């Protein structure tokens, strides 16, 4: 399934790397529910969030500057940062 990482820039303890925001990837696997660091960093009891591993092609992240476009980066992204493409 194809997803796009939201291009949001809120303040706080965010574990969605800046270089992946706005980028499109493919869901590699779903890992399960975890505490949301955006809440727990400030001792807030927010809802748990689904954590998803997303696979991105280098070409979709770095464009023509990519070393080799078919190489990939995989990262864990909380589901509330993902939107369907």
């Amino acid at each position: 399934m194809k997803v796009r990482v939201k291009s949001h820039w809120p303040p706080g303890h965010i574990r969605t790397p800046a270089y992946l925001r706005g980028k499109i990837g493919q869901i590699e696997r779903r890992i399960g529910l975890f505490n949301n660091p955006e809440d727990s960093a400030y001792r807030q009891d927010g809802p748990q969030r689904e954590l998803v591993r997303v696979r991105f092609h280098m070409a979709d992240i770095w464009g023509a500057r990519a070393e080799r476009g078919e190489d990939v980066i995989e990262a864990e992204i909380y589901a509330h940062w993902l939107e369907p493409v």
Partner: protein
Amino acid sequence: MPHDHHDHSHEGLSPSGHPYRADNDTDLSYWQVMEIALRELLIEKGHLSAAQIHAQINAMDSRSPANGARVVARAWVDPEFKAALLADAGEASRAMGFDIGPMHLIALENTDKVHNVVVCTLCSCYPRNLLGLPPDWYKSRAYRSRTVIEPRKVLSEFGLNLPEQMQVRVHDSTADMRYIVIPAQPEDSFGLCEEALAAWVTRDSMIGVGLPSAPQ
């Protein structure tokens, strides 16, 4: 450093010509003070003892890449264990007897088509509960930023030149999972027993910046 001429200053160097390590007589940082305050309060209120804290420090210091090497060696000789490791590396490591606490671990298998390498761009997440403390370079800004931009160049600086047709998979430890690479078993090691194989598995090969090699 040559010691047989004295036309330069030896100030700041030991008699054998090495720089002295700076003494730690500077002020404590804010966070160092906070750590000491928290630790002393926990002890004072009876939640923990100094001996318990020290025992945990010793337990972490005693973890080493040798633990991960045993996991990899078993995966090389035991297909059922390898399947369990790829399904849930945390559970498989616990089943082998390693106390890795609540760590969530994912094993990444290198093949003749795929090479995996692990980085944490946001901080320095590392499977410490299995492999012990990370190497200093793993925490450097250079490794953390360059590995996602130019992994092949970074790997070549580690002496690892991958064929163009092999896919590089960079794994950014952004959240709750930790990663261990299961390197491909070198052909020269086929037929060896599990214990002998563990000596082939280097720390760097489990991070993905090196390959297993015959013990020196």
